[in-house]
């Protein structure tokens, strides 16, 4: 423990003399500004205008000349009778915003016999030939070429497109309705029409979905009635001719109703679902929309078919806004910007998903200040902010940066001496130097061992050698792909094999449990739901789940050695036997990677092959998952959030940044310190928390530093450090009782064996066989503990603590206020704070009581409890 206690000396290994005198005064003058000023030498390219100057940032420009008029699409081929295509007209306004001018445009055709066009740009084919669509707008004439063929025959009917399209558009196959795992009301559909063949069977033949069998169960109630098509439940339910839990989905005689009726009348064929016409991918225009409140845009959704053709699906898809208060979207695909913020429009058809990223800006800025970035992170973040007309906050003060970076890299507050030194340091590279010192400190290894112990599931059943392996790996800066490989493919009884052990029982984990954990940890994917059924919201299937599980099937524990081995069949503990059986198909499953491909060879240790596949440079998930987790450490949330829930429906807030970070991480040789250094050096990370009129509402674009509550362990260690009183952690009786050695920090504990009221009240995760879940929300119990709990009350008053030492050393009230501020908040008090607090101490019943109350006030403050 001693090196931890010796933090005061050892942490940053600063050899320079402490220039207390000079520094003591400096921050009192103007803590933030001076330091930000000095910093300009590091980053000479500061914003031309002060971004926090509200007059500057808030000025509005009247819309002026439009430019870059476009008619979209500019060229299109239509096939079949009645085929149609929507067109939109867009232009860029004087402030760089793309605006939709479709409804202001006048459309006409070069040949009215071949097609017709409505006032809002919907063109319908009449007969074969080629023509031009013209759009007149603001004196400009735009043209698009339309090629029409095959109008002699109707487009062949297809269940997959036409009927499933009705299901999708009306929400029938959403996860809460018939697309749920078990369907609804005895009628099951595949989620968002991902599997039309199965949908056909459920619709035409009926039957009840069974989770554990591929066979449908009784009763078999077909949803179609070929004798009396109008009596089909498929029509009567959604039209509410029969009671329907899902309510009325469409009117009788609506277009959707007629589509279904016509299909049943024709004998409910599967029809043309086959090759060629299947939808391979959806595309949408625009991919991204930056809008002002009150404006509208029309979305164009195009299906790319297997035969290379494309087709306008805009009127036939399901549109959903992730935040209808910010952006809403009509069933026809017209989005409306309601208030500043961001939202995604998810568009679903034929089991496919495409998303539009929408930003609603508060007010366009006429002059956007130049904000100089330091590295590629800043380029990505600041480009996005510029698009959204949000001006980032200025650079953080030195003291704010110091506290933040110490907490994020080492989980430890800097002691007052180090704060003074850092503030006094005149080296223009002092922030970079600090980052290096922290990356090489023992506290860095302690803190990241704690982080990884959480993430890798270190529990009392496996703690000791496992945790040493993590610590050793981090201390040596082992490339992260090596860590992953050692863990996934490990055999024997060394540290990295210990994750095969269950948290509570100490049993060996079952293959599917282990697989689920490894995939979540290393690929950021939650496959667990697919154990029993295809993933309810995403494309993960039960087959993928069991295919990847099969890599773990041969694993055996040799009890006498507590060792794990592959390829020894029939040994003592092998929960599933050497074979992994698919629970629905009841067939043995061969190992398959998540993409469905099998390993080139089998035999030996199959998890080596799995580890190869996972860590391969072309596996996008592996690097993205870890850079996202590390990012979350520095910003409070991941670019993908939750950090272990990568899936198409939950895209990253900054996809390009995520990829750039992952690429940089791969190129660095999977170097965790390099990644952290890159993040910590970025201006994005070093922004202040200051508000300006443009970033006030922003919580996802990194336009300023947002406060993050300290985690239970970090908070308790910080309280111990500020009060100067170590926590004595009790050890649970069932592992022998007693207490942890003096000086043990909360971040070193194994939760199960060290019950702690404080840590539990502040949300330390305890249930360790499932996903670690940290609760950062405030609670009544925290409020109670803060007011009267022993952690605060007795530590502050304890003999030998910081308060007592300051008093007995004869420090003045002013010195005490400053010293406690440095210890708790890593800054000097402002002049106002100093005056006010000195007065409060003087007015207290006793001086000691006053100083104790001051210490409590600091520890209870938001500034202390949060990293900001």
């Amino acid at each position, binding site marked *: 423990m001693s090196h931890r206690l010796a933090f005061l000396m050892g942490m940053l290994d600063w050899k320079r003399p402490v220039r207390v005198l000079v520094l003591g005064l400096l921050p009192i003058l103007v803590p933030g500004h001076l330091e930000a000023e000095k910093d300009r030498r590091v980053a000479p390219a500061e914003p031309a205008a002060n971004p926090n100057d509200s007059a500057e940032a808030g000025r509005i420009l009247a819309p002026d000349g439009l430019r870059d008029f476009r008619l979209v699409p500019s060229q299109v081929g239509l096939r079949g009778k009645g085929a149609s295509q929507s067109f939109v007209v867009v232009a860029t306004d004087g402030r760089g915003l793309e605006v939709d001018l479709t409804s202001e445009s006048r459309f006409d055709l070069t040949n009215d016999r071949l097609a017709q066009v409505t006032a809002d740009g919907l063109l319908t084919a009449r007969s074969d030939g080629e023509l031009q669509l013209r759009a007149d707008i603001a004196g400009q004439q735009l043209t698009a070429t339309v090629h029409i063929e095959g109008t002699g025959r109707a487009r062949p009917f297809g269940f997959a497109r036409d009927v499933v399209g009705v299901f*999708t558009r*009306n*929400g029938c196959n*959403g*996860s*809460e*309705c018939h697309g749920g795992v078990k369907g609804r009301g005895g009628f099951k559909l595949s989620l968002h029409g991902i599997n039309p063949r199965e949908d056909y069977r459920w619709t035409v033949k009926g039957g009840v979905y069974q989770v554990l069998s591929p066979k449908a169960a009784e009763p078999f109630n077909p949803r179609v009635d070929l004798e009396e098509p109008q009596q089909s439940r498929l029509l009567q339910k959604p039209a509410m001719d029969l*009671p329907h839990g*899902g*309510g009325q*989905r469409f009117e009788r005689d609506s277009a959707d109703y007629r589509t279904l009726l016509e299909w049943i009348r024709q004998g409910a064929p599967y029809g043309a679902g086959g090759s060629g016409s299947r939808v391979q991918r959806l595309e949408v225009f625009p991919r991204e929309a930056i809008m002002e409140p009150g404006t509208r845009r029309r979305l164009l959704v195009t299906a790319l078919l297997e035969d290379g053709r494309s087709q306008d699906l805009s009127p036939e898809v399901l549109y*959903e*806004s*992730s935040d*209808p*208060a910010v952006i809403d979207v009509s069933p026809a695909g017209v989005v409306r910007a309601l208030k500043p913020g961001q939202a995604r429009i998810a568009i679903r058809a034929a089991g496919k998903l495409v998303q539009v990223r929408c930003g609603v800006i508060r007010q366009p800025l006429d002059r956007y200040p130049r904000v100089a970035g330091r590295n590629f992170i800043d380029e990505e973040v600041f480009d996005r902010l510029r698009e959204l007309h949000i001006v980032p906050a200025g650079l953080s003060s030195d003291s704010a940066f110091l506290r933040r970076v110490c907490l994020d890299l080492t989980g430890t507050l800097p002691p007052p001496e180090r704060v003074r030194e850092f503030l006094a340091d005149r080296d223009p590279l002092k922030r970079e130097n600090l980052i290096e010192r922290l990356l090489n400190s023992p506290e860095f290894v302690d803190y990241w061992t704690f982080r990884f112990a959480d993430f890798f599931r270190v529990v009392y059943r496996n703690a000791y050698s496992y945790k040493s392996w993590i610590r050793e790996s981090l201390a040596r800066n082992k490339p992260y792909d090596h860590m992953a490989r050692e863990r996934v493919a490990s055999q024997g009884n060394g540290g990295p094999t210990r994750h095969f052990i269950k*948290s509570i*029982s100490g049993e060996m984990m079952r293959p599917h449990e282990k697989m*689920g954990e490894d995939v979540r940890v290393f690929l950021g994917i939650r496959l*667990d739901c697919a154990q029993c059924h295809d993933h309810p919201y995403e494309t993960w299937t039960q087959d993928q789940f069991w295919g990847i599980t099969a890599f773990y099937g041969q694993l055996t524990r040799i009890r006498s050695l507590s060792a794990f081995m592959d390829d020894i069949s029939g040994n003592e503990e092998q929960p599933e036997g050497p074979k992994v059986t698919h629970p629905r198909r009841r067939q043995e499953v061969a190992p398959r990677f998540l993409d469905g491909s099998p390993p080139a060879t089998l035999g030996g240790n199959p998890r080596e092959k799995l580890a190869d596949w996972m860590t391969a440079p072309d596996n996008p998930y592996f690097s993205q998952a870890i850079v996202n987790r590390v990012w*979350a450490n520095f910003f*409070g949330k991941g670019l993908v*959030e*939750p950090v272990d829930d990568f899936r198409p*429906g939950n895209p990253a807030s900054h996809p390009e940044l995520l990829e750039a970070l992952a690429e940089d991480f791969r190129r660095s040789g999977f170097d965790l310190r390099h990644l952290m250094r890159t993040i910590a050096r970025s201006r994005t990370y070093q922004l202040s*928390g200051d508000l300006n009129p443009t970033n006030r509402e922003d919580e996802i674009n990194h336009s300023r530093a*947002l*406060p*993050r509550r300290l985690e239970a362990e970090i908070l308790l260690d910080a309280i111990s450090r500020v009060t100067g009183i170590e926590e004595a952690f009790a050890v649970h009786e069932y592992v022998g009782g007693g207490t942890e050695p003096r000086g043990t920090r909360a971040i070193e504990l194994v939760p*199960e064996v060290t019950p702690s009221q404080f840590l539990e009240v502040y*949300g330390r995760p*305890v249930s360790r*066989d*499932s996903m670690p*879940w940290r*609760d*950062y*929300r*405030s*609670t*009544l*119990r*925290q*409020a*109670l*503990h803060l007011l*009267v709990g022993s952690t605060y*009350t007795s530590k502050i008053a304890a003999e030998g603590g910081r308060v007592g030492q300051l008093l007995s050393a004869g420090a003045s009230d002013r010195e005490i206020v400053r010293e406690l501020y440095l210890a708790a908040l890593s800054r000097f008090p402002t002049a106002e*704070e100093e005056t*006010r607090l000195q007065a*409060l101490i003087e007015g207290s*019943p006793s001086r000691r009581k006053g100083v104790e*109350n001051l210490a*409590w*006030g*600091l520890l209870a*403050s*938001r500034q202390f409890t*949060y990293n*900001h």
Partner: protein
Amino acid sequence: MDLPIDQLGCCRPRREFLRVGALSLLGLNLRQYLALEAATPAAARSKQRAQACILLWLEGGPSQIDTWDPKPHSQFNAIPTRADGIRISELFPRVAGHMDKLAIVRSMHTEENNHPQGTHYALTGHRPNPALKFPSLGSIISRELGPRNNLPPYIMVPEHQETDFFSYMDAYTSAFLGSEYDPIILPDPSQESFQIPDLSLPDTLTAADIADRRSFLQAVDRGFRQKEKHAEFGRMDRFTNQALTMLLSPKVKQAFDLSQESDRTKEAYGRTRVGQSVLLARRLVEAGCRFVTTSGYAHGAWDTHKDNDQRLRDKLAPTLDQTLSTLLEDLQQRGLLDSTVVLAMGEFGRTPHLNANNGRDHYPDCWSLILGGGGIQGGRVVGASDEQGAQVAERRVTMGDLFATIYKAMGIDWTKEYVNPGGRPLYIANSIDDVMGQPLHELV
């Protein structure tokens, strides 16, 4: 990671969930959804409104044929009770005298056969799942009814004695609902040293001290407060005010103070861990708690793999008979019986036949529990087991049905669904195969 609950969209009725915008998970738009909502059966809101629930947790799983579903092959005779035609084991003569207040369910059917999993199942209605967490009954009731009279809504007394409470923790906690709906866990109140952590001012601190401290806090945090409007800060302020009210309220302090009870009452409940815990539970619901998990049997007490009959006769049954009947009498005397649901159960039943050690093993297929008070019809039996007490012969009752019954008694919309942070809908009364449980209409 740090989203307030309302942004996660969880624990709201579905209608509100949609309003906050997680539509994509549902495949519906708001208009469509509202139509769906209107078509679902109206939530059955009972006129009766129980205010609180006491769960006597019979940890380990009591044997149904030796308690509430007597069979000829039990060592214990069946005795008549105050309710016509209802017979229970002779081990519970005093409870028999209260059978007019109690209902028996003899056809419970559950799905887990081991203690941690069975406990999880019985208290959440869900099997444990590595990917999902489920809120406990007490957490759900606390959230739906909210706190009363400044008391914490959900309390567990005494703390458990398991060697690894962690494996049981998920059964009692609030999952994604948030820790304000976790139980506050109290130590054993029958001990001399019994003290309640953080719910009253310590001797070293006066109300004036707290006021002084808060003026320091204000001076420190003023600037930061003006700048930062983090959503969580408002919550913390609300909790701080609530905490101050609690700490300064003599009523809250008194609620936990068993010394206010007469020796006679303490004797009546029994001066044991079980008796005093149940007495404290009564004080707590009287003062305003919503849900108290109590009883205080030692770990695995009812887990009679060995010497089932002897353990029941000598220890388990007499304590339960005394404590439960005293509780019912006490609640009635105080006019609390109509507003307090009392439920006594374990995590499963036991095999109807003795094993080689004269014990009975775990048995979830068919078992019994009793409940009463809070407007629940007494003197009734729901369901029946077969001759052996081995299978449900009549009216299978699931955990979801039981939960729905209690919700209905408490005026909670039992048809409600929560949506967890991953977007999965969960019935608060979840029955086997994720269907919605139905209240036992015979009882509520």
